[in-house]
């Protein structure tokens, strides 16, 4: 199969609408050929079709059956039915973590890029190999929105937000990593003009269920004291 034939089949391939044999031929070709960069974008578009079906409330019994099945399997494997809790960690004053310069530069570039627009696709790696990936867009349904970029090699999450209200001097926005329902403060920030801000936080996102932002006293709180203004599941 040559490149022109692959391009012709790109739509059907992205939609998984190829018979087995043809599928294998396409995959063999793509394994060795880098001349089809737009196929990934078509696959992403195909994935978006998952949301094009109308949402529908599942029968209540389904949840009970599912949780039963999870518990049964968990018991059989001797495994917890929920992710392991985050290592207990005391409140610590958030700070820009010490980074190797290249990683910091990459993180800052991502902050800048993240503020440019909603549809920017970020996946960069720099010479030092510090790969950073956009993992989550946040929105509150109102004017505020943001995104989190995770620099995996550094365990560094960089959050950018815009559209948040300015706060009086004695208040600050506080970022929480919530695991097993337990919030841990991981950073504080104030917003600049346009409600914009960015904050870098050292956090192992693999153990976190939810990231949330609340308004707290300027020095931060040991526990959230107000409802989140932004939150996202991780």
């Amino acid at each position, binding site marked *: 199969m040559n490149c022109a034939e692959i391009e*012709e*089949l790109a*739509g*059907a391939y*992205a*939609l*998984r*609408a*190829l*018979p*087995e044999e043809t*599928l294998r031929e396409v995959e063999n070709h793509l394994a060795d050929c880098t001349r089809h*960069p*737009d196929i*990934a*974008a*078509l*696959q*992403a*578009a*195909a*994935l*978006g*079709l*998952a*949301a*094009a*079906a*109308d*949402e*529908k*409330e*599942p029968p209540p019994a*389904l*949840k009970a*059956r*599912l*949780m039963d099945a*999870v518990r049964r*399997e968990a018991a059989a494997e001797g495994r917890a*039915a*929920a*992710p392991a809790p985050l290592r207990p960690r005391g409140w610590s004053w958030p700070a820009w973590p010490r980074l190797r310069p290249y990683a910091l530069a990459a993180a800052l570039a991502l902050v800048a890029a993240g503020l440019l627009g*909603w*549809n*920017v*696709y970020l*996946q960069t790696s720099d010479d030092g190999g510090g*790969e950073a*990936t*956009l*993992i*989550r*867009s946040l*929105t509150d349904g109102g004017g505020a929105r943001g995104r989190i970029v*995770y620099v*995996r090699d550094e365990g560094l999450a960089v959050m950018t937000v815009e559209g948040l209200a300015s706060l009086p001097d004695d208040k600050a926005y506080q970022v929480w990593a919530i695991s097993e329902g337990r919030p841990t403060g991981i950073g504080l920030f104030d917003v600049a003009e346009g409600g914009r801000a960015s904050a870098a936080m050292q956090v192992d996102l*693999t153990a976190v269920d939810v990231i949330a932002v609340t308004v707290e006293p300027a020095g931060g709180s040991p526990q959230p004291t107000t409802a989140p203004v932004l939150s996202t*599941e*991780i």
Partner: protein
Amino acid sequence: MELLYERFGRLAFGLAYRILGESPSAEDAVQEAFLTVWRQAERLDPARGRVGSFLMTVVHHKAIDLLRSRHGQAARSVPLDPATIEAQEADVLDRVATSMGAAAAREALRSLPQEQREPIELAYFEGMTHVEIAEALGVPLGTVKSRLRLGLERMRSAFGIERKT
């Protein structure tokens, strides 16, 4: 797991229902998909692919396989690996999985010309191959290939997905 169900249960069941209709198999597809995700939870790397994207992909695969087996056709499952759900796809689903995003996704599909929407729906929601679509619609295979591609290109652009160069 409960959190994941709260977040994606309606979207997952909506997709399975669209594919399988009112039947116990729609529930089976959803349950199997959540269990698959749970079994692989330790392998899911949040920096690469998101759990929700993986989940919805599994729901789709399971539902299509059940549909095809109902019609006496061979399942076309390929082994699912969370690592194959790339960040770009994850980002797309994150955006469309909000209720506003889902409405936009429906609108994007609806606004395709019928000649492009029809084959895309047959491929995605009926699990047909391009050959089967050509037979069902009575159009040449080459036409189906180009309509699938053109329609998907429009969806890509409606979702704001950048083409990589």
